Structures are given as C-alpha cells and as structure tokens.
C-alpha cells in the first residue's frame, strides 16, 4: 500500500533524512550563526515536505514566517549578543537525555494504534475535516477550503491568533522600545527605602564584558578550516 508514487516517496525519504541531519547538526554545533542558519534550513525543508503532503497554505506560511522572519529576528538578536554557545558538561546532560528518551519510548509505544500514513478511513480523515470540504462546496462557494475554515468556520481561532501577533509586537515594543531606548528607567519606592540594594548596580554589570566579537573569543578550532569565519577576522 504505497502512499505515493515512487519518485515522491524517494523525495520524502530525502526530506526526512535531511531534516534529521539538520536537527542533529543543530544539536552538536556551537557557532550561533551556523545554528541560526540551520534553523532556517530546517524550516524550509519542513515547508518542502508540507507541499508534498498537500498542505500548500502551511508550506507557504512555514517558509515565509518560519524560515524568513525567524531567521531575520535571530540574526538581529545574535548581532546584539554573542556569537558562540558554551557547551554544558556532559554529566549535566544525562538528566535531560533520560527525560527525552522516556518521552520517545512513550510515543513509540503508541505507534501501533496510530492510523496508517495516508489512510483515508482513519478517524481524522472521516471526521469533521472531510465534512468541511463538502460544506464549503455547498454553502461557502469558495475554492480554497483552508481559507474558508480559517476565516469563517474557525474564524474565532484566527481572531485569538491575531491578538497573539498583536501581543508579540506590543511586547517587543514594551521590552525594547521602537527607538531602542526601553529599559533604562529604574523603579523607586514612594517613600523611605530601608532595604539594602538587592543586586549589583546595573552599569557595573553591563561594562563587565564588552560584546564578545567572533575573533576575540574564537578558541583555536581543532581542525584548521580555511573557510572564512562568520564575520570575524581569522
């Protein structure tokens, strides 16, 4: 019972392999610039696989929002902070590894009961989803069923989600300020303060470490790589 014709199946297996490789690369790497770029690659591969899974709207959004905007934001943030991630000692990683493996085992345990890939008679594909196609054809007279469901049948979800986007914009304006000058104001009690200052004065901390540029921090990489460093003078 082949889900796709052979060429598409090979393409999908290619997508999956690349996704795994990219995810593992992000896990192993320390240079933040590479990690951010790989995250963009990961989103784009997902968008490609979405297209072959007939989710064209989602592929469009994942490519535009997931690969495009996230990468721009992460580069912007990375530019303002550090270029490298310090590794954690391995003994501190065993706990998380154990938790993650437990989660994986739980999901593989239930793999048997999941509907087969592409099964037209599974509860998902005979449930409300399939009836949307029918009702859009008879009631809505709109070609793109996803837009009809997104804006009308489940329009309230999209309203909540527009509020989430508005809140993200407002939140970043609150935290960083549109002209980049938020965060300088200090709260003072409206009366005599009896408490000792609870943390070291802010200025001292900020001046403690200048922005760690790539060149200054780069430890000699084990293998002599000739490729130009990310922006740093090698």
């Amino acid at each position: 019972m082949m889900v796709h014709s052979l060429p598409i199946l090979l393409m999908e297996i290619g997508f999956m392999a690349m996704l795994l490789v990219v995810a593992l690369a992000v896990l192993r790497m320390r240079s933040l610039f590479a990690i951010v770029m790989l995250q963009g690659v990961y989103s784009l591969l997902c968008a490609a696989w979405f297209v072959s899974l007939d989710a064209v709207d989602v592929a469009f959004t994942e490519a535009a929002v997931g690969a495009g905007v996230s990468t721009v934001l992460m580069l912007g943030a990375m530019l303002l902070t550090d270029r490298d991630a310090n590794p954690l000692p391995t003994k501190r990683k065993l706990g998380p590894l154990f938790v993650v493996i437990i989660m994986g085992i739980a999901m593989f345990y239930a793999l048997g009961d999941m509907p087969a890939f592409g099964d037209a008679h599974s509860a998902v594909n005979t449930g409300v989803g399939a009836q949307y196609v029918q009702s859009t054809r008879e009631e809505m007279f709109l070609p793109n069923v996803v837009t009809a469901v997104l804006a009308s049948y489940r329009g309230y979800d999209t309203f909540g989600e527009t509020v989430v986007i508005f809140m993200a914009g407002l939140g970043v304006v609150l935290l960083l300020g549109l002209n980049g000058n938020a965060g300088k104001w200090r709260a003072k009690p409206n009366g005599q303060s009896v408490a000792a200052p609870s943390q070291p004065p802010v200025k001292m901390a900020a001046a403690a470490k200048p922005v760690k540029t790539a060149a200054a921090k780069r430890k000699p990489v084990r293998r002599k790589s000739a490729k130009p460093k990310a922006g740093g003078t090698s």
Partner: protein
Amino acid sequence: MITLFEHYNYAIVIILMMIGLYVVFSSANMIKKLVGLSIFQTSVFLLYITMGKVTGGQPPILDPAEYESHGGGHESAPAAAHGSGHEAAQASHDAVQSAAHTADVIYSNPLPHVLILTAIVVGVATLAIGLALVVRTREMYGTIEENEIDELDYLGNLEGHAG
C-alpha cells in the same frame, strides 16, 4: 515490521521531537534554547499535517467548476485538464459532469492545516518575545549563558544579604 513501514512518518516526527526537546534542555545558551524550542514546535506541526494526508489526495482547493454548475446554468464543465501535474490515477482529465467529477477527486484533510497555520504564528510570536528577553538579559547581565547568569545572581543575593 509492517506497522513501522506504515507509520514511518510518525517515527520521524517522534525522533525530531526528541532531538528538539533535548536541544532545549541540554543547552545553556539562551539563543540555542530558542532554536531548540522552534525545532520542537516545527516537528509538532509535521505530526499534525501527516495525520491529515490522504493517499492520492490533492491540496484541499476546490475547482470553481464544481460549484459553478450548482448555482448557474448547467453547462458542461470546461475541458479543464488539471493544471497541477499530479498524475494520480483517479484524477479525471476529460470534460466530466461536475457531479461525477466531485465524486472521484480526493482531497486531503483541511482541518490540520488550519490548526497549524495558527500554531506557526504562535511559535514565531513566542520566539520574538524570547529574543527580546535575550537582548535585554545580555545588557543587564553581560552574558547569555544560563550558568554564568546563575553565578551572577547567586553573588547578587549574597551581596544583597550582606549589605
């Protein structure tokens, strides 16, 4: 073995989720944590979309001809050969009455697509706020490594108490 072959997509999704979650837990750098979080969320989107795929199905975009004939005069459907080169065996090529036409065209399930459109944008909104926090933390603490920040906080507590 058959079950694994029928569920290979879920197996991939589960492994990607495990990797994404492990990146979040095992990295001290705040930006790498956010990257791990977005990998974890993107693999959840894959879980939803692979659920909705139907064998030999098409993207859930109806052909306007299908419902035109309901409303307007019953002219024969135009010889609209399918533009998309989707050579699924069942797709009809020649001019077919719309009633027969709708019966055999299979569409994938649109509902997971709608849910994931929402989830993608929620993921990016959380990412934007997280990055704003990272920038502000870098200014206040001078570093974005969680273990260094804990040391600074621990020192801060002691000084505060001693003062």
